[in-house]
Every structure is written in structure tokens, then in C-alpha cells.
């Protein structure tokens, strides 16, 4: 009994092949949005990007509490996310698995898009996907 519980616990956060990652459900009224900057804003880099989330909570990556996840900021990402795979980790997909609710972002001058996606304990998008509107900002030359 003890062993079984531990096995279950370890399976939740384990490194299974990615295709086996199971989706976690999110409340239908969950609302993810970028508080700042505003869509169309002209900003100087680096700038603060602040994350807003309603009807769900922010927790650490690895913690499987119901109705809670952690933020991911997509920068200039054009390809759609695979809803069944962990959100990629690279310079265009920033992870905030320690429960950060804002980030300092440094981008070269020019137009960029920003979009937030909430990930579950295993960095997989929720079902339905909790995703902000994609905004476009202009970073001013230095």
C-alpha cells in the first residue's frame, strides 16, 4: 500500500517518453492574459512582462495540484503547440517553473510577438489549452 502510493507519486512526475504525457484538464473559465506590455506597445528593452491568470492558480513545475500550473512565455513563435507534448524549452519558449508571475525580457529592436501558455506539472498544456491572446510589440532602437 505504501509502496503503491509512492509508485503512483513517482509516476506523476517521471520522465516517461513524451508521447505518454497525459493532459490535465483546466476549468473552462480559466483566463490567461498579459497584463503588460499592451498589445501594440512600443517599449525599450529590457522590459517587464507581467502575467495575469484568473480562475486558476500558479504553482511550481512538478506540483500536480488541481487547477494550478506554471507560466511559459512564447516569443516570436509561429508554429502551433502540440497539445500532447511538453512545451518546448529553448530561447523562444521561456519557462517559469519556479512560479514566477513576471519576467524581465530582453529583445533586439523590431517587432516581436508575445504569448503566454500555462503548463501543468509536466510542462504539458492543459485541456482545453490555457493560452493568452498573442500580442505584438515593437522594441525601440537603443
Amino acid at each position: 500500500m505504501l509502496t503503491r502510493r509512492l509508485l503512483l507519486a513517482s509516476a506523476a512526475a517521471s520522465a516517461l517518453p513524451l508521447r505518454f504525457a497525459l493532459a490535465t484538464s483546466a476549468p473552462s473559465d480559466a483566463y490567461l492574459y498579459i497584463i503588460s506590455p499592451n498589445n501594440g506597445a512600443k517599449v525599450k528593452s529590457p522590459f517587464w512582462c507581467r502575467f495575469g491568470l484568473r480562475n486558476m492558480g500558479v504553482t511550481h513545475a512538478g506540483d500536480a495540484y488541481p487547477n494550478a500550473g506554471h507560466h511559459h512565455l512564447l516569443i516570436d513563435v509561429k508554429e502551433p503547440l502540440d497539445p500532447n507534448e511538453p512545451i518546448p524549452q529553448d530561447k523562444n519558449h521561456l519557462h517559469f517553473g519556479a512560479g514566477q508571475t513576471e519576467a524581465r525580457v530582453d529583445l533586439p529592436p523590431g517587432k516581436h510577438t508575445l504569448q503566454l501558455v500555462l503548463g501543468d506539472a509536466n510542462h504539458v498544456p492543459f485541456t482545453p489549452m490555457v493560452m493568452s491572446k498573442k500580442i505584438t510589440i515593437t522594441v525601440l532602437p537603443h
Partner: protein
Amino acid sequence: MPGEVRRFNEGKSENRPPEGLARRLAAIIAADIVGYSRLMGMDEEGTHARVTRYRRELIDPTIAEHHGRVVKNTGDGFIAVFDSPVEAVRCSIVIQQSVTGRSASLPAQQQILYRIGVNLGDVIVEPDDVYGDGVNVAARLERMAEPGSVYISGGVYEQIKNKLVCGYKALGDKRVKNITDPVTVYRVLADPSAVKAARQVRGLVAALAIVLVLAVGTGIGAFWLFNRSEMERQGGETARAPVAPPPSASAPPSAAPAAPGTAAAPTPVVAPAPAGAPSLLSEPEMVMLPGGSFAMGSNEDATEKPIHRVSIRPFAIGKYPVTVREWKVCVAANACAAAVLGAGAEDDRPITNVSWADADQYAKWLALTTRKPYRLPSEAEWEYAARGNTESKFWWGATLSLGKANCKGCGDPYDPAQPLKVGQFAPNPFGLYDMGGNVAQWVEDCYHRDFAGAPSDGSAWLAGDCFTHVLKGGSWRNDPSYVRPASRDQYDTAVRYPTHGFRVARSE
């Protein structure tokens, strides 16, 4: 791809604006000594010496062990932050038990006892302080707490109630000065009397655990003996040999966990192998590298500038990333997390889903059990090893060649779902496998936005708040630009991600 995208939490730098660090969720411990001024009034020097000793010997190591960080020292206490509320409360209990135990022999009026409050909140963490309502609540909880006890907020309780096996006593909602909403307060029952009451139950659990240990231990022992005799029969042939047959001296015994089930059980089994039998430990196979100097960095990305000369002393580095097999030995020794192992994790695949803290823990355990100076490589050592005396964009030349590494766009073999077994591609000129692609690899260094001010002696760059560490080489899910030896990325120190692994280094 943007030239430079980063979070701004990697420590001080010249260009950094004056604003503080990013807000984040943290578990905060506030602790102070009961009747500190009375104790100081009675015996200033003695009290000070004792408190200092407690801090050095009991408290600071306990906080470090639980991946916490002291952010502020007050005269009679401290404030520490943790990523995990479970770790924060566990740490508090250990502190209370060890301090109470140590004080028990002293006369009552000389006893040093702490009060501890733990809260979970959104805070602003700076290198030497922490701000926010979350901290104030932790401090109020601390002041409410009975001497020797731990009080936690409702937020902490909700996160740990099913994870930490100890008693919780609800004390109801309390008004907290300057905080609008009342705070639900729980007392963690870890003081001596509660422990005594719980002992009977614990005894039962312990008895069960012993039975389990014996059962598992017997199984492992038999398995180990079997494998050993098998190995001896085969004249020291190894079970691993992904590509090149490694020398028998470092033969991985594949001894430890017979099944994932036993690996996951938290039984304190399999003590480190006795000294004198080091070859039976699953030590990763190492390659000795000559010292030298090289041009580190590149002009491909802002984070890789400026190119600078670095000298490297001779050192050894893992021929492959640390494998699932090697990780399991550490799990069996109760020194590494079983949680990162998947049910079907195959032995010859690199271990993944490890945080920097996990990787660091493995290297420390390996050093301890082998009594050899194992550690994580520095970023400079990693890049030096990956370049293998080449200065080109990739170690094999200036352009991408298919079939040289495991990345998205690097050609075949490729499996989008998981990393390939280690050693599936040709080694680099130093004879090292998977130096780029397959799994992204943690190094010792804290992340800095570029190389301005980086050390030139090959050592790890540890200045800054170290909230994120450096990842090298990219993973199978990254594009070919990440396979370049100069490519670098960052990730939160304590967070696990399924494409992150590591290899070890050893000083010579």
C-alpha cells in the same frame, strides 16, 4: 530567432536597470530564538558562541540540504526562502528537532529554542533580502509560535497535507497585523511530546520498513551476486557497451535496482559499496583531457559574446551523459530522486528530467562514495571538451552535416518522443559522445547574460543569484543551432524538464 532573449534574474551586470528581481512564488521560513535578549543578558559570549555553533552545524547545512537559501539574518534569527513548501516545512521540522535535541542537556534557563513560521507567497527575492506580504505573514506566524514549534499558514498546509506525514493541529483563523484577510494557522506537531505520541505509530512503520528493506535487500543482493559472478565469468565484460567496449575497470555492475518498483521505494537500502571495491560502483566512464587554452564563445548569438581566451587544466569528463543505469545506482543508495525515472526508462538512455540540483546531488554522491573529486564540469570545460581542439561552428566543420548529432533537423537516427541511447553518433576528436544534441546538459555555472567579466581560468562562474544555471549542447527537441559547442541556454536551478540531463567531470 531573436538574437537575445533572457530573463533578467541572472545576477548583477553593468547594463542592468535598477529595478529589483522578478516576483515569484516562494515558501518563506521566518525563525527566531525565544528570549534572545534574556539569554544575551545572562551570558552574552556563551549565548553568542552557542547560537553561532547551532547555525553553522545544524541550521545552515539543513537549509542547504533542503535546497533553501538564507536571504536575511536578523540578530536573533533568519529568513530563508525555498522553492518547495514541502522542503521548507521538512527543513523546519529537522531544525526544531535537532536544536531541541541539542539543547535538552542544558538547564532550562540556558536553553536555546527557536520559533518558526512558514508561509507561501508571492515575493520579491533580492540577493540579500526578500520583500512582500508573504514575508510579513511568515514573521507573524513565527511570533505566534510556541517555543520549539513550527506554525504554518493555510496556504502551506494545503500544499503539504498529503505529502508530509506528521500531525497538523488547526488553530483557526487569526488576524494578522497590517494584513487585510485573516490567516488560517496550523501547528505542525513535531515537538518532543508530539513525537513521543507518534512514536508508536512510527515504530510500526519502521518495522514494516525493515521488512521491506530485508525483502528488497535480499532481492538486490541476490541479483548483485548473480550479476557479479556473471561478470566474472565473462572475464569482466561489461553489460553496458553502447558503442565502444569500455575498459573493464569501469564496468557498470547494473547491480542496483532489479525493477523500477524497488527503485522507487524509499527504503534506506544498499549502503555505498565498501572502499576497496570501487570498480563495482557504477562509475561513469571517464575520458582524460589534456590541458590547454581555447577561444570560448562565438559571434553567432549575443549571449555567446565576447569571444575570450580561456585556459583549462587537465581534467576528466564523462564519455557519455550520465545514464539511467548510473542514476539508478544512486537511487538505490537513497541519494538521488527516484521520481525522475520513468516506468519504462531504459538503462542505456541518458537520464532526463533532472534539475540542476538533482545533477549536483548526483555528482556530490558520486564523489562521496568513490572518494574521487567528481563534480559537474564548468561551462568553460564543457565547451573545451565539446570543441575537441576545433574552432569551427560545429566540431565536424562550418556547416551542419546530417547524422552527426541527435537534434530536430540533424537527420537520422531520430525519435521525437525520447532521447536516443547514449553513444549512437560518432565521437568528437576528444573521443566524447553526445557533446551536443540528445540531452541538454547542466554545467556548474550560474547563468550570466553574456561573457563580459567571465573568468579566464576555466573555473565555473558562480557570481550572481544563481536562480538559473547554464545548459549546454541542446536536446533532441532543439534545432541544430543548439548543437554548436558555443551555444548556451539557461533554466531554473530547481526545476525539472524532460530534455535536461548532464555529464560529470573529475579534477585530476
